[in-house]
């Protein structure tokens, strides 16, 4: 029961990865390759790094808030906090 929450998320992400990786090298099957579709804006690496940083920050935020909720649960939030 406890594991089913995280496992559901894993299943969802895995399905997403399968579709995205599976259709390479096309971004529109048979019409356009991913390499042709990518923006010519320079510095994609930096954008990627920035996105990672932002999501890392938000991830830390989620963990902190969830830990807080686990310690002092809101009345109706107790279950959510324990599940994570």
């Amino acid at each position, binding site marked *: 029961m406890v594991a089913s929450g995280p496992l559901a998320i894993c299943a969802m992400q895995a399905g997403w990865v399968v579709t995205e990786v599976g259709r390479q090298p096309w971004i529109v099957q048979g019409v356009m390759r991913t390499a042709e579709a990518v*923006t*010519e*804006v*320079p*510095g994609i690496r930096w*954008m990627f790094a920035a996105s990672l940083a*932002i999501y890392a920050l*938000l991830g830390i*935020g*989620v963990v*902190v*808030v969830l830990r*807080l*909720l686990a310690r*002092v649960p*809101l009345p109706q*939030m107790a279950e959510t906090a324990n599940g994570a």
Partner: protein
Amino acid sequence: MAPEVILLLIVWLALALYVLLGGADFGAGIWEVNLAFQTSEKERLLLHRALGPVWEANHVWLIFVLVVLFNGFPPAFAALSRALWLPLSLALVGIVFRGAAFAFRVYSVGATRQQLAWGVAFAVASTMAPFFLGAAAGAMASGNLAVTPDGRFTGDYLFDWLSPLAIFTGFFTVGVCAYLAAVYLAREATIEKERDLAELWRQRALATGIWMGVLSVSGLVFLAIESPLLWHGFQKRAWPLVIVSLVTGFASLEMLRRRHYTTAICGVAATVGSVLAGWGVAQYPALVLPSITIYQAKAPEPVLWAMLGSILIGTLILVPSLVWLFVLFKRPYAKKQS
């Protein structure tokens, strides 16, 4: 009427709704910067209550504008995505952090320092998003983006969007959001029979409104200097709308002074609407100045008609649900108090 013209009208209408509804949400966040320094618990509660229920629903209009541009005018969407990637990404960062910080703050009850930190993040992100969205609009209005009709961008990817006009419209948009929020909050406080709060927000609205009036006149000067194409359009076609916006702007200030808040909101809506309409009329038939017009950028006609059909059906579902959302969340407080 040609389908591309109808779609263009729908885009401008959705943009106006986004400014009026989403802008007020941003504005309430902007005022939080101020609340961090001097505030009463009561004031904070009013602000949070007003924001609480519908605070993300309004982004539906931004998504709508983006999707219609993407499907209906692909080259224009491509050109804007390339030329304005930096301000639009920064606006997105603002929107993401705003939502996250709001949620985190609500759930970190009890941890005062954390709540304060998320509050600051919320206020900063709420200012950042309209600033960069406004700056992107200003960059578009300047007509200096090196875009080609097939959607390429040949300019500098880091700095070309950054012009005096863009910085001005960035600040101007932040001001518009703050003004909208102050007028809405004055009305909400009146409905909740919080006399002193209503007076506070009325004063803030009046002060911001007067500043916005001064700013908008100087905005015309910026436009005349920096964007000759758009300025020409204003002189030739769109000047009646400038007059409408000035008249309704003054009218909304006067209504605020007389404490007719609902009428004031209608006035503000007319002002914002006529400013956007003026921009649209002035640059018509261009979509992205100087070189992309709606005729060059439109998708094939069957696509446009199919889009119009689906928008019509979507509206039949979306509008009643949005109205219901507003009614549901605004009603209980009013009822309780009256």
